[in-house]
């Protein structure tokens, strides 16, 4: 067995009396990929913030390479060799790749090349960055401005920065949440390379298949408590979920009764330059149509165009045999289309508004007296939705931003439902949502389809697509490559068409 590089014992931390971390432990070996699992709110991010010195612990020990890490701040831990790749990419967009990599360490580079220490030796910085990126096997121009990079490329730059910092432990927080499958493959290649160099990785992700593919060891936290550490080979999907949720989930996906009515939505020849072309499909009432494909295949773009968020180059949209022109979300909503965006924070809800105001937002006109808001009627409706969707909130006045991801998603779904849609487009409905809440959202989607609503569901999680869809439309590079029956489709079939 490899030697331990980082050991954490009995770490605790409270926020205003509530224990966010309660006696947590961790044993990280040299050169291992150690997955840290747990639902949102399990304490993973508090744990990581303490590790990198962003937060102080109330009690407990952190032993790094045999010595105690105490009262350290971020720059201390960085120097000692602990780096974190943040989910929200803490980079300076206007600076170049090389400048970002050596940010804060310009003097070191300059001193080594013998210049007076106030001098900025950009050519040396560029040379070193190029060398580093080449070593990693990624082709990124070190002189490109950061803002022109894709999320995956930024991640590579962040990793390069960690390597140049001589990081011995790299923490990756949901590194694959916004990158394509191909980019994931590159990332995993680099992670394996790092392993070979005895760098240890703490890997946080919600994606089960990834965890089993890349990690050696898995530690599970739940409600701020340490649950267990096991070798990845000892676990499977179900046993891991059970550890995270604290109970057995017998069935992820609810039964499908399969009662479909007439065609509600049909699109013909839908095209938008540079995004997708020649898309045609129909959805019946009570049917769930899954849209599958890799990142960038054009799934979200199609949804946005149907909902009037982006202009359509050409093509026909029919709702119940009527040709419709949709130029704005306002049009779409009035014609019975609802859209639950993948970008929950950006397009889904208004963070500083109350739960109640968010739920009612699209149907405020139905709750009015003249120009005034009918407060009583509004509260009645909101309470009905909160009960129906089982939204967990401390009250209708609570700000939406304070809810958990799953409950935020339910608020958005509630808002869309209140506008009484016939067609609902769900774009990554369970992204960033806990396993427990996922199951509830699946039930909710099934309920909607049983009430006769036509549903289009976009998802990057193949089990979800397979578990929920009646039919699956597969897209590749903006073209539709197959329509599969939900019962017959397999992950392999979808992947085959997705890369076609």
């Amino acid at each position: 067995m490899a030697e331990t590089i980082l050991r954490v014992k009995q770490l605790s931390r409270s926020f205003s009396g509530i224990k966010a971390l309660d006696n947590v432990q961790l044993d990280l070996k040299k050169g291992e990929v150690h997955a840290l699992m747990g639902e949102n709110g399990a304490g993973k991010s508090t744990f990581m913030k303490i590790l990198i010195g962003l937060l102080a612990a109330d009690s407990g020990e952190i032993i790094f390479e045999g010595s105690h890490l105490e009262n350290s701040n971020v720059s201390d831990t960085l120097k000692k060799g602990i780096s974190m790749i943040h989910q929200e990419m803490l980079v300076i967009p206007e600076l170049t790749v090389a400048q970002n990599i050596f940010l804060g360490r310009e003097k070191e580079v300059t001193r080594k090349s013998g210049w007076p220490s106030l001098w900025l030796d950009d050519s040396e910085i560029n040379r070193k960055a190029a060398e580093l990126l080449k070593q990693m096997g990624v082709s990124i121009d070190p002189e490109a401005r950061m803002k022109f990079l894709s999320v995956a490329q930024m991640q590579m730059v962040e990793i390069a920065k960690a390597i140049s910092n001589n990081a011995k432990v790299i923490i990756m927080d949901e590194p694959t949440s916004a990158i394509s499958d191909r980019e994931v493959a590159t990332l995993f290649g680099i992670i394996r390379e790092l392993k070979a160099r005895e760098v240890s990785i703490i890997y946080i992700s919600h994606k089960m298949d990834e965890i089993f593919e890349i990690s050696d060891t898995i530690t599970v936290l739940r409600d701020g408590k340490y649950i267990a550490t096991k070798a990845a080979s000892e676990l499977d999907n179900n046993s891991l979920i059970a550890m995270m949720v604290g109970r057995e989930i017998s069935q992820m996906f609810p039964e499908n009764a399969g009662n479909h009515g007439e065609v509600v939505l049909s699109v013909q020849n839908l095209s938008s330059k540079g995004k997708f072309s020649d898309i045609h499909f129909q959805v019946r009432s009570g049917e769930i149509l899954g849209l599958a494909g890799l990142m960038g295949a054009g799934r979200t773009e199609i949804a946005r165009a149907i909902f009037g968020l982006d202009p359509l180059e050409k093509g026909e949209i029919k709702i119940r045999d009527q040709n419709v022109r949709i130029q704005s979300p306002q049009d779409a909503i009035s014609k019975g289309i609802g859209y639950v965006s993948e970008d929950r924070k950006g397009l889904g809800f208004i963070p500083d508004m109350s739960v109640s105001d968010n739920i009612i937002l699209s149907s405020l006109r139905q709750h009015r007296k003249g120009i005034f808001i009918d407060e009583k009627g509004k509260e009645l409706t909101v309470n009905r939705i909160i009960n129906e969707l089982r939204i967990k909130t401390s009250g209708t006045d609570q700000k939406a931003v304070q809810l958990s991801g799953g409950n935020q998603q339910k608020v958005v779904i509630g808002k869309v439902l209140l506008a009484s849609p016939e067609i609902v487009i769900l774009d990554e409905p369970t992204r960033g949502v806990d396993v427990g809440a996922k199951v509830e959202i699946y039930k909710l989607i099934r309920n909607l389809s049983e009430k006769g609503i036509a549903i289009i569901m976009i998802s990057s999680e193949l089990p979800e697509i397979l578990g929920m869809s009646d039919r699956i439309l597969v897209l590749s590079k903006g073209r539709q490559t197959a329509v599969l029956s939900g019962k017959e489709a397999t992950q392999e079939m979808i992947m085959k068409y997705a890369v076609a």
Partner: protein
Amino acid sequence: MIIGTQVSINALLAFGVTFVIITGGIDLSLGSMVAVTGVVAATFAHPDTYPLAVPLLAGLGAGLLFGAFNGFVVTKSKVPPFIVTLGTMTIGRGLALILSKGRPVSNLSDPFNFIGGGNVFGIPFPIIILIIAFLVCSVILNKTILGRYMYAVGGNEPAARASGIGVNRVKMWVYTICGILSALGGILLTSRITTGQPNAGAGFELDAIAAAIIGGTSTSGGTGTMTGTLIGALLIGVISNSLDLLNVTSYYQQVVMGVIIIGAVVLDSAGKKERG
């Protein structure tokens, strides 16, 4: 009472700009709108010419048009409101000078001068206007669909659009309302100094924005209340009045005012951190 009268103009403008800031915009043309609407109203307010309603409607109409123009350019051009209203600020100043031919418009009728200088039941008329405007603005913001949409647009514009809200219409409304409130301020000012001054109102926009910010309106949009803004305006009035009477040199007054603006925002964000 004096303070009430003295803050009335700034408070009216601050109410207007609070609407705009809540939607995530800004209006720098307030001061110029005060000048334009004041000159327009004064032009029709000479004794024995038109009934009182004419100068009032002319002034308010000018404010409405000016505000609507701001809203139109902001929604149609995609140019940031800061730039648009910086432009219309200068345009407005020029218009005021053109309309008045660079000369103050004086010799105004007694009924017109009553608006800024008269008392009703012992209460100065500007205070009555202030109270009515406050109530109307509070109701618009808290009780109407338009008000709720303002918070939504400022809180997250793309989400508001995706929720089916006519974002551009909401913006048209707030700039127009802001124009009307500025016109009310312009009329009040003209009446108080019994002259339509083309140079009047310079720098008023900054005091109004300061009142809104001190009152807790976030410059990034989505939050803010009329009560907060009213308190902000009163506070600025009380402080500048006290400093005057305490014989604090005007040089120091500016420093004190700046410290208060920053202090209010710092306290506010400290509060936010504690909560979040």
